[in-house]
């Protein structure tokens, strides 16, 4: 489904702030893979997701999605293939637009936009059912501005938006990190349900090792812009958190996992 071939990305090249974010990244995902991505701060996890979604151009290398080279495709054009949920709950929705308007925006992700109504009448009832499926009671607030919702509610709506048109890939960038534990658990539960129901090819960045182990069929660890560890299936199922920490220490040359990883 996705092939990342030898991708390099350097930020602020030639300055004192030069940062090699991706350094020869290679990764191939099969159709239906649900891969969790872990790694320390600055390992290149978010950069990888942003490169896939086209936020930055690649310095070198190639990204192929479902047989199509998308390396130089503009971000808004790739959007029709990708569902994205961001770390910041504010990023995925338009605060000044209502729940149904936001969903309608997402529904038109794969289509040409014209002078037809932004939300048609039959759509409204479809959206209402979809929102009801979240089990958050939001189905009675379809015309409420999204800006009035809590972070968790907004993240749940963003998840719906990302998957309302079945994407070729779902990209989750630490999408529960900014939520309190109870809300995070609920959003993760919804995530797992949607991914399973639509058997979506998914990439989820997380700082929570337990989540990384519990969810998905595959786990990759990144360090200094590369994948240093990649397990799937049975092998992944057998791992536990201490294993991961040991692995991380070994691969990164004895460097300790940072506090955030240990605490998670």
């Amino acid at each position, binding site marked *: 489904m996705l092939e990342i071939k030898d991708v390099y990305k350097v930020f602020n090249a030639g300055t004192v702030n030069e940062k090699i974010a991706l350094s020869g990244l290679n990764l191939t995902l099969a159709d239906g893979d649900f891969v969790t991505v872990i790694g320390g701060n600055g390992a290149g996890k978010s950069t990888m997701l942003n490169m896939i*979604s086209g936020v930055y151009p690649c310095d070198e290398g190639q990204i192929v999605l479902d047989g199509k080279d998308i390396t130089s495709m*503009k*971000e*808004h*054009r790739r*959007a*029709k293939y*990708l569902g*994205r949920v*961001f770390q910041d709950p*504010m*990023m*995925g*929705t*338009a*605060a*000044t*637009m209502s729940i149904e*308007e936001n969903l*309608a*925006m*997402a529904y*038109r*992700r*794969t*289509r040409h*936009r*014209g*002078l*037809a*109504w*932004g*939300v048609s009448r039959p759509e409204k009832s479809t959206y209402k059912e979809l929102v009801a499926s979240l089990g*958050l*009671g939001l189905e009675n607030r379809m015309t409420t501005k999204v800006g009035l919702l*809590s*972070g*968790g*509610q907004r993240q*749940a709506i963003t998840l719906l*938006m990302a998957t309302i048109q079945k994407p070729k890939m779902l990209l989750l960038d630490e999408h529960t990190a900014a*939520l*309190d534990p*109870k*809300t995070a658990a*609920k*959003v993760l539960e919804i995530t797992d349900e949607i991914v399973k129901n639509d058997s979506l090819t998914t990439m989820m960045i997380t700082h929570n090792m337990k989540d990384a182990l519990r969810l998905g069929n595959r786990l990759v660890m990144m360090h200094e812009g590369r994948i240093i560890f990649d397990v799937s299936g049975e092998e992944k199922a057998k791992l536990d958190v201490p294993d991961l920490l040991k692995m991380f220490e070994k691969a990164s040359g004895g460097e300790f996992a940072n506090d955030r990883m240990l605490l998670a």
Partner: protein
Amino acid sequence: MFEAFIDSQPGSIALGIIWGIMAIGVYITYKVLDIADLTVDGSFSTGGAVLVVCVTSGMNIWLAMLLAFISGCLAGLVTAIFHTKFGIPAILAGILTQLALYSINLRILGGMANLPISFRKYNLLLTLSDIPKSLIMGGIFTVALIAILYWFFGTEIGHSLRATGCNQTMSRANGVNTNVAKTIGIVLSNGIVALSGALLAQYNGYADINMGRGAIVIGLAAVIIGEVVFGKIFRNFALKLLSVVIGGVAYYFFINLVLTLGLPANDLKLLQAVIVAVFLGIPYWKNSITKGKHKIKKENKGGVINA
């Protein structure tokens, strides 16, 4: 003194409506797209100049209005290209176009700073000497414009403009070309501003190279007054646009009042700037005063997903 003030009310209402239409253009960039577009100072005069030149050369008034609208659209397009293709910050892009428009407007006016158009000679839509007619025409334009914009911002393209103004990351993630959305908004906004300039030129009986000076400030004043007064009651988009026009009328009422009270006309721009600065400051001051309260509210609420 006050009799003169009351007598002059219908006139200032007509002026307020014309500037209110201009403020609707400003609303599209400033409120919907979240861009401060200073092109309007130039495109307002462009609209007036194009109309006067077209009509005095014998063109039909409605066709001249259309051309005035298109000339404003083109001015907006230049700013949009500066912003999206040259990477120039929107505010600076607008200033550049505005500067260039000064020369262009002079060319349109045939090198003259002021070009008259007489209501006796030409069939104008509105004029200073027939205020009731002007009020009706202004009203018709306002209602028609609000209706069209209400429809437009309910369409798919309209939604993509609103989303772009609110959250560009979200817009791109949902397949919106944010540069195109901004371009459409800036073009439309300046078209409306030029249309309003064309109306004012007819009303005053002349187009002037300086007629648009400070237009952005008047537009902002109308937008902000409308918002402060009606923000809490008017939630519907059409009503919000209406409140902008009412803001324009209220503004001219106020200006008329201070002039009657003896403010020298030369000091008017100073007063305008101060009014807009204060009104822009109010939400900021409000925020910094109530910050503490909001925090407590949030903590009480907790982060429960059903909150």
